[in-house]
C-alpha cells in the first residue's frame, strides 16, 4: 500500500473522482429534507432510534424512563464511596458556594456569583483535571446570538425549538435566545476577540438547522478563546480552584438540602469534605461513556459524573434518551478518529460527497438528520470509503472552501482543522477529509427551572449537565451560549439564595439509601459510579496489575 499525500493509494483514487465532480457542484446543493423525509431517515438510520440500545431505568425519580444502556449502567451502579469510612465531623472547606466543574459553566457561574456579592474566598471550584480542561475548551465553530439586522430573538427561539423536536422547556429556550446578545456584549467587555469584518461588524455564519446567519466565532478556536478569557477573569478575581479534585458524592444535611460534597484528590487519594450553603453542578457531558461504542469528540473527563451524583440525591433528569452524534468526526487517519471537524467547515462551503464524488445530502441539515444521511450512504447505499483499519466514512470536500470563498480562507478561519490534518501529512486545502458521525453532546440532563434550580433544594445546575434547554437535539452554537447564559443565571441566583440558608448536620444517608434501593430492586452491579476517568489501558495488562 503506497501512501500519497497522507492517503493510501486506493483512497486517493476515490479522491480523484471527488476532484472530477467538484466544478459541477459549485453553487449547487440538494434541497433540504421535508419534515416527513426527516422522520423516515432518522427512524431508519439514527443510532438513537435503535430501541435495543436503550433500556428502562429501574430506580429513582426517573424510574421507567428509557436511556442508553451505558447511562443506565452508571445510574444502577454501586456508589463507589464507602460511607462508613468517611468522617463528617472534620470539615476541610467551609464555603458559601461550591461549584463542581471548572469548565465553562462553572467558571462563568463563579464570576457572576462574585459580581453579585459573594466574596471570592466564600466560593470554591472543584474540578477533575486542570481548571479549563473541558468540552468548553474544545468548541471550534461558534456561538449563536440574534444580533444581526434581519435576525431577532424570536426567530432564534423558533430555531432552538424546532431543532429540539419541540421537546424543549419553553421558558429555558426563551432565556437562551433573549440573553444571547447580552452574553456577546459581556464577552466584548472582557476582551474576547470575535471575528470582525473590515467595518468592525461581527462575521456571522449560518449553522445546521438555523434560519439566519448568527454564528459568532473566533477562527476555529471559539471555545478556547471564550474559556481562556473567562478563566483569566476568574483567576484575576482570586476565586479558589481545587484541581485534580473531583466531587465523588454530594452531601446533604439533616433537613434534606444539598450541603456540599465529598471531593477526592486524584493524586493522593485523600478525600476532602466541603460544606457549602449551595452547590452548582457544572460537570458537563457524557462523551467518554462511548455510547454504542462510538468514538467521541469530548474531553477526557466527560464521564457523566454530575448526572450520577445528582441522581443519588434524588434530582430529576430529562431527555437523556437522546444522544447527539456530530455528523463530521474524523474517520481517517486512525490517530484522530472521532475528533471533531467543526460544522463550520460545512457552513463555509465544503460539501459531503460519496466515494464517487456525488452529492447525497444538503450540507446544512440539523445534526441528527445529517448524521443519519452519512450512515445511510455508508451502510445502505454502500457508497462510503473504507480505511485500512476498517472505518467507513464519506468525504467532506474541504478544498471547495478556498475555491468558493477565495484562496487563504481556510488558513484565516480554520487553522485548528488545518493543523490537525497537516500533523498527519494531509493538506485539507488540497484534499478532502474522510468523516463519520461521532458521539458529541448530551442533549438532556438534570432538570432545571428558570433560576437553574434542580428539583432538590440546595442544588443548582448549569451547562451541558442540564436538560430542557435544547429538547431532544441541540443546534450548533447553542451550547457555548447555554453555559454562558445559565452559568450567569446560576451565579446570580445562588448569591441571592444563600442569604436565607442555614445548614444543619451533614449526612451521607442518601448514599446508603441508594444502596438499599438497588438491593431492593435486585440490582447487583459490578460497576462503580461515578466513573471519574475512563479506562483506556489494555485489558490483558489490567488483569496482571497488583495494588501495592
Amino acid at each position, binding site marked *: 500500500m503506497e501512501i500519497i499525500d497522507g492517503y493510501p493509494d486506493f483512497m486517493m483514487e476515490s479522491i480523484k473522482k471527488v476532484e472530477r465532480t467538484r466544478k459541477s457542484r459549485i453553487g449547487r446543493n440538494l434541497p433540504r429534507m421535508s*419534515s416527513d423525509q426527516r422522520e423516515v431517515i432518522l427512524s431508519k438510520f439514527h*443510532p438513537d432510534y435503535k430501541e435495543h440500545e436503550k433500556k428502562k431505568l429501574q430506580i429513582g425519580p426517573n424510574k421507567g424512563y428509557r436511556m442508553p444502556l451505558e447511562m443506565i449502567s452508571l445510574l444502577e451502579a454501586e456508589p463507589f464511596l464507602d460511607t462508613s469510612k468517611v468522617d463528617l465531623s472534620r470539615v476541610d472547606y467551609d464555603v458559601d458556594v461550591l461549584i463542581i466543574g471548572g469548565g465553562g459553566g462553572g467558571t462563568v457561574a463563579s464570576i457572576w456569583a462574585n459580581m453579585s456579592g459573594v466574596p471570592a474566598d466564600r466560593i470554591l471550584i472543584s474540578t477533575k*483535571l486542570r481548571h479549563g*480542561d473541558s468540552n468548553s475548551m474544545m468548541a471550534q465553530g461558534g456561538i449563536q446570538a440574534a*444580533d444581526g*439586522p434581519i435576525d431577532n*430573538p424570536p*426567530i432564534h427561539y*423558533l430555531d432552538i*425549538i*424546532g431543532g429540539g423536536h419541540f421537546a424543549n422547556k*419553553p*421558558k429555558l429556550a*426563551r432565556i437562551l*435566545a*433573549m440573553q444571547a*446578545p447580552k452574553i*456577546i*456584549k459581556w464577552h466584548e467587555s*472582557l*476582551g*474576547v*476577540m470575535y471575528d470582525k469584518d473590515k467595518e468592525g*461588524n*461581527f462575521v456571522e455564519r*449560518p449553522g445546521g438547522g438555523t434560519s439566519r*446567519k448568527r454564528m459568532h466565532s473566533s477562527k476555529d*478556536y471559539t471555545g478556547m*478563546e471564550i474559556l*481562556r478569557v473567562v478563566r*483569566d477573569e476568574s483567576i*484575576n478575581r482570586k476565586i479558589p480552584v481545587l484541581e485534580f479534585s473531583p466531587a465523588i458524592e454530594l452531601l446533604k444535611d439533616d433537613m434534606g438540602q444539598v450541603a456540599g460534597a465529598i471531593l477526592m484528590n486524584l493524586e493522593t487519594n485523600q478525600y476532602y469534605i466541603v460544606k457549602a450553603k449551595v452547590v452548582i453542578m457544572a460537570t458537563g457531558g457524557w462523551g467518554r461513556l*462511548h455510547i454504542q*461504542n462510538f*468514538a467521541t*469528540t469530548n*474531553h*477526557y473527563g466527560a464521564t457523566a459524573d454530575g448526572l450520577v451524583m445528582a441522581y443519588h440525591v434524588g434530582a430529576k433528569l430529562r431527555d437523556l434518551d437522546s444522544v447527539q452524534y456530530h455528523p463530521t468526526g474524523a474517520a481517517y487517519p486512525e*490517530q*484522530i*478518529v*472521532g*475528533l*471533531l471537524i467543526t460544522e463550520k467547515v460545512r457552513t463555509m462551503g465544503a460539501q459531503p460527497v460519496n466515494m464517487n464524488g456525488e452529492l447525497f445530502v444538503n450540507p446544512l441539515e440539523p445534526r441528527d438528520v445529517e448524521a443519519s444521511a452519512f*450512515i445511510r450512504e455508508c451502510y445502505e447505499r454502500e457508497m462510503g470509503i473504507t480505511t485500512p483499519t*476498517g*472505518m*467507513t466514512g464519506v468525504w467532506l470536500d474541504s478544498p471547495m472552501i478556498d475555491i468558493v470563498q477565495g484562496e487563504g480562507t481556510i488558513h484565516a478561519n480554520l*487553522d485548528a482543522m488545518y*493543523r*490537525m490534518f497537516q*500533523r*498527519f501529512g494531509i493538506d485539507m486545502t488540497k484534499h478532502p477529509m474522510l468523516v*463519520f458521525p461521532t458521539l458529541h453532546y448530551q442533549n438532556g440532563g438534570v432538570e432545571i427551572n428558570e433560576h437553574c434550580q434542580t428539583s432538590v433544594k440546595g442544588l443548582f445546575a448549569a451547562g451541558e449537565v442540564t436538560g430542557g434547554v435544547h429538547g431532544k437535539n441541540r443546534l450548533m452554537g447553542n451550547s457555548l451560549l447555554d453555559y454562558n447564559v445559565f452559568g450567569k443565571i446560576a451565579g446570580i441566583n445562588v448569591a441571592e439564595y444563600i442569604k436565607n440558608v442555614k445548614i444543619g448536620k451533614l449526612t451521607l444517608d442518601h448514599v446508603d439509601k441508594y444502596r438499599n434501593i438497588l438491593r431492593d430492586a435486585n440490582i447487583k452491579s459490578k460497576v462503580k459510579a461515578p466513573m471519574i*476517568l*475512563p479506562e*483506556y*489501558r*489494555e485489558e490483558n495488562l489490567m488483569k496482571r*496489575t497488583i495494588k501495592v
Partner: protein
Amino acid sequence: MKIMEKNSSATEKEMKEKKPAEVEQAFISVYIMGKEHRVPFGLTIMKAMEYAGYRFVRGAGCRAGFCGACATIYRMKGDYKLETALACQTTALDGMYLTQIPFMPANKSVYDIEKLNPDINSILHLYPEIARCVSCNMCTRSCPQDLEVMDYIQAALRGDTEEAARLSFDCIQCGLCTVRCMAEISHYHVGQLARRLYGKYYSPTPRHLTERLEEMDEGKYDEAMDELVVMDKENLKKKYWKRDMEVK
C-alpha cells in the same frame, strides 16, 4: 444493522481488543521516562502510553490538540536534539525517548482588566521580564502550534498589542516555550493579556449589537416571546416549517 460493530476499529475502547489482522501490527520501542515499552506502530504518544499501561491523571485533557495538557519533550535515539510535541497529536515513533511536562509553574500577573490603561507600556508594566528576551528564538522552535512566539513577545515589548494578540491567537497555553526560555518569560500569559487588551480596548463593539440591546431594553421582543412560549405544538410546528431561510 450494526454500524458501530462494523465501524469501530478505532475507538480507544477497542484499541485494546483489536485483532492483529486488522492493522499492520508492527511494534516499535518507545522509552517513557527512560523505560522501554513495546507498542504497536500508528498510535499517538498518548495512546501509546496508555497501551503501555499508564493511566493519565495529569498530562491529558482534551485529547484533541486544544488544551495543552499533554506537553511532551522527546529526543530520538542517537540524536542530541530535544524536540517538543503534543502527546495527543503526535504519532509515537521507534526510538523516542519521552517525558511529559504536565505542569509549568509560570508567573501570571493578576489585574483588573477594567482598570488597565491600554497604552504601549501596559504589557511591559505587568510582565517586565519580556525586556529580558535575548531573541534566541528557542520559544518559536518549541511551539507545537508553530506560532511565531518570539515575534509576539517582541511585539508586546514594542507595545504593539494588536500584533501580539494576532500572533499569539492560536496559543493553546501548553507552556513548552516557557520551559525552554532562558529569560524566564511566561509567553502564554503575556499573549493572554495582549488578546484581552486588544479585544476590549482596540476592537470596538459593533453598532448592530448595541442597537439590538437597546431594542431589547425597550422590550421590543417581549410580546412576541410571550406568545411563542405558550403556543401549542401544532402552531409552533407550522411556524417553524414556514420560517424563511437566509441560507437555502
